[in-house]
């Protein structure tokens, strides 16, 4: 046992102090950006800077303290990165509020509080991620119900052509954002059990191991589900996202690239069919190919976004100095365009790299995680974020056709923010499990001080 420990080479350190330091930097970004917006637009620091900064600091520090107590070995980078992005998003929304006379930033701060509360709740209540495996089919069923909810009469709402909203009395929500977390858990639970059956049988055609026909069942079902979302909810982004998650998790579980070939071709077929069959997909593609052809119509958002980013250039106009309000729905879909104008290429690259860090940390967690379920959940959640960021920022910057997805942690939108905070809580929980020393060895190693903690948390 000692041997295997030395074979592993090192015991992960907790690094909570590093996390605190990074969090203070993140707070400086968030509160500094808020002050800069006030200075840029009105020429003075916003009067509520103390209350706002205090609340933001309270939320961040509380989550740090909770991590310190309930997930001491968790990855130290994730929380600060998320705090920085969330703070930057709040400042960008506040900046648009000042221009448009709206009050999205206040609501977003409330949603952030809810998100942090759920983040804390997840860490406190879920002491071992493997418990989730028991709820595989419950999660799957819940996800499908959530996805179907917008289709129901009375509570379903169509906004901007996509039927992805439900109206629950005073608050509206996008159930798809919550469904994506549940789906990752359900996929992981299903694949852990069935991965051998999926992986072992198959035949080799043209250097590629193709799975058996009967094993294609789940992937075909998923394909049909994502097509159904595309057809009935007109939601390109979500259907792409769900299919992508399933495909990558299938690949991770089975280690069979053949699935990627099959899935990739199915996606291509689906995308082609979607393009041929639906005018709303064609409109998106046309607006992507030449936004300026119909600048005052379908190309307006993307066109204004491109103008804004070009206007920002290398260093940006400075917060409060540009005209990001020219972009329709800048606070939700196009927050990246708004940031690109005022923070410039430099700021936008920083934002993209922050997202890259989250994904990298998530995948690293998956790598070091010791159980298959945890690996699948962590890689699934990391890929969710990677795909979502790629689809949104790629769409806003005219790399790929625009699809309606929110930018994690930056965009205005409660469901998305809350769901993403829970994703981070899950990643922290898994990384805490993955990085903490193996309990049996703790007595023999220098990490003896933590032995009691680890034994308390150790289940079974």
């Amino acid at each position, binding site marked *: 046992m000692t041997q295997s420990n030395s074979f592993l080479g090192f015991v992960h350190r907790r690094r909570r102090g590093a996390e605190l330091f990074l969090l203070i930097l993140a707070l400086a970004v968030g509160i500094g950006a808020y002050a800069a917006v006030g200075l840029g637009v009105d020429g003075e620091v916003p009067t509520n800077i103390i209350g706002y900064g205090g609340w933001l600091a309270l939320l961040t520090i509380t989550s740090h303290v909770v991590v310190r107590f309930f997930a001491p070995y968790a990855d130290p980078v994730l929380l600060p990165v998320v705090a920085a992005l969330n703070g930057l998003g709040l400042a960008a929304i506040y900046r648009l509020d000042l221009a448009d006379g709206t009050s999205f930033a206040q609501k977003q701060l409330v949603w952030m509080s809810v998100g942090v509360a759920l983040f804390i709740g997840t860490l406190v209540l879920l002491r071992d991620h493997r418990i989730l495996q028991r709820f595989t089919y419950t999660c799957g069923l819940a996800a499908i119900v959530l996805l179907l909810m917008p289709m129901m009469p009375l509570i379903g709402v169509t906004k901007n052509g996509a039927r992805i909203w439900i109206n629950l009395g005073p608050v509206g929500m996008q159930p798809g954002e919550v469904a994506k977390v549940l789906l990752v858990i359900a996929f992981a639970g299903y694949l852990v059990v069935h991965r051998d059956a999926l992986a072992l049988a198959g035949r080799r055609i043209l250097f590629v191991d193709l799975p058996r026909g009967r094993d294609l069942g789940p992937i075909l079902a998923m394909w049909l589900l994502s097509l159904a979302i595309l057809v009935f909810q007109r939601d390109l982004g979500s259907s792409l996202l769900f299919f992508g998650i399933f495909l990558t998790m299938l690949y991770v*579980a089975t280690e069979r690239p053949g699935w990627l070939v099959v899935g990739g071709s199915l996606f291509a077929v689906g995308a082609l069919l979607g393009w041929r069959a639906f005018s709303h997909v064609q409109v998106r593609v046309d607006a992507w190919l030449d936004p300026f052809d119909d600048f005052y119509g379908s190309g307006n958002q993307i066109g204004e976004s491109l103008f804004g980013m070009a206007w920002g250039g290398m260093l940006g106009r400075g917060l409060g100095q540009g005209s990001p309000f020219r972009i329709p729905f800048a606070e939700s879909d196009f927050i990246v365009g708004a940031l690109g104008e005022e923070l410039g290429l430099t700021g936008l690259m920083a934002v993209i790299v922050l997202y890259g860090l989250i994904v990298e940390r998530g995948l690293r967690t998956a790598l070091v995680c010791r159980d298959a379920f945890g690996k699948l959940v962590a890689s699934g959640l990391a890929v969710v974020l990677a795909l979502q*960021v*790629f689809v949104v920022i790629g769409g806003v910057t005219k790399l790929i056709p625009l699809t309606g997805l929110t930018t994690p942690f930056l965009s205005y939108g409660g469901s998305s923010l809350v769901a993403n905070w829970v994703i981070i809580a899950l990643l922290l929980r898994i990384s805490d499990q993955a990085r903490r020393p193996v309990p049996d060895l703790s007595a023999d190693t220098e990490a003896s001080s933590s032995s009691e903690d680890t034994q308390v948390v150790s289940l079974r």
Partner: protein
Amino acid sequence: MNKPIRTLSIFCLLLFLALLGNVTYVQYFKASDYNDAAQFPENRRVVEAAFSRERGAILVGRTPIAESVPSDDKYEFQRQYAEPLMYAHLTGYFSFYNQTGIERTQNGVLSGEDDRLFVSRLVDLVNNASPKGGSVKLTIDEDAQQAAYRGLFENPQLGDNVQGAVVAIEPDTGKILAMVSSPSFDPNELASHDLGAVDKVSKALSDDPERPLENRAIRRDLPPGSVFKLVTAAAAIETGNYDSEALVPGGSSYTLPHTTTSIGNGGRNCGSDKIPLTQAMENSCNTTFLALANELGQDKMRAQAEAFGFNSTALTDLPNQLKSTYPTDLDDAQTAMTGMGQFEVRSTPIQMAMVVAGIVNNGVVMKPYVVDEVNSPDLDVLDKAEPRELSEAVSSDTARELRKMMVNTAERGTAKVARIPGVEVGAKTGTAEGCDACNNYAWFVSYATIDGRSVAVAVMLEKVNLSNSQIAGGALAGPIAKDVMEAVID
């Protein structure tokens, strides 16, 4: 399961690299295209920033006729025009939607984006000051411009609502000393920050049948009539067969070749058979110039007209100079008609001023220009215009003969109104018929020279509130030309 996760990491890395590459493309490589209002007129950010910027002044002498003054509304600066009606067609206007005139052709300098202002931009960047535009100094002579303006706008002889233009050129450089077009407009109204009002004014101006936005000096081409006889005479003398005293066909009427149409001289003394060329010029003898044009033929006539600048444009400091035309594919009767500036010969006022300037400048036509100096925001001279030869229209001998005849015309011919005591003045009148139903056009071209200082002037009256019988180049347009010449040489 670690191998697929590693593969996945590479895949995610590629996704993020693609995003980083693409934002670099949009915000760095493609940004200058998107920020070019010419390529993307929809880009309101650029338009608003340009509209709000402190532009450089347009100067006449040391007086700013257009300048940006601080404004306390949505935009930081307001463009103001000091003498709106007098300079409207030179400065043009700077509106939210577009620019005309000098505001357009010198936009780079005025807005500060011109390469010659690179150093000044750099200094502004270092000092964290907002970039300022350079100023542009015009060649305009303030007194001459005022004289021309009074002649068209405050002339009791002509009344109100005159449609016409005056151009004065310095013959040995090509400097435009005066350019006025009537009716005019107020560019202040178009530069207003009240965009709704600008829309209304703009629509009213473009719908106005009198076309106040048109710079008639360079955009209105009309039959030049008798002033074109200078070109015919030039072509004739250039053959070597004639000088100012040479005998040419005169008589009281001329029948166009292969027709029965007969044209007379309106009772002016053109002899009975042969008369000296100078007499034909002094009395504007149609019979002589019809015969000369017929004798020279259309090719020689066209070559001479083109040598003076017809069928091409020369002015680049103002946008959209209209080509003056000498037509092609003429029959003999039509060729003869061109000899007195009729048929399809059409000239802008600036073109006729160039003809006179060429004659005064020993036959060499200089390229006309309006922008004299480009100054940095600190008024350092960045660039000074160099006079450039456009063409050698006639030999200096021919030019001397033509000058002699123009002087005679002013001394004792139809253009006596232009005489200035003690100054060499040459002139030629013209009254052209546009069509049967419409009014006549009055032309007057002249030059004055004393002590090495010269000026060539062309006056064109397209429409005045007088009957056709009262419209004559000498009586109506001559006094205006004389005032402008006096303003220059005094």
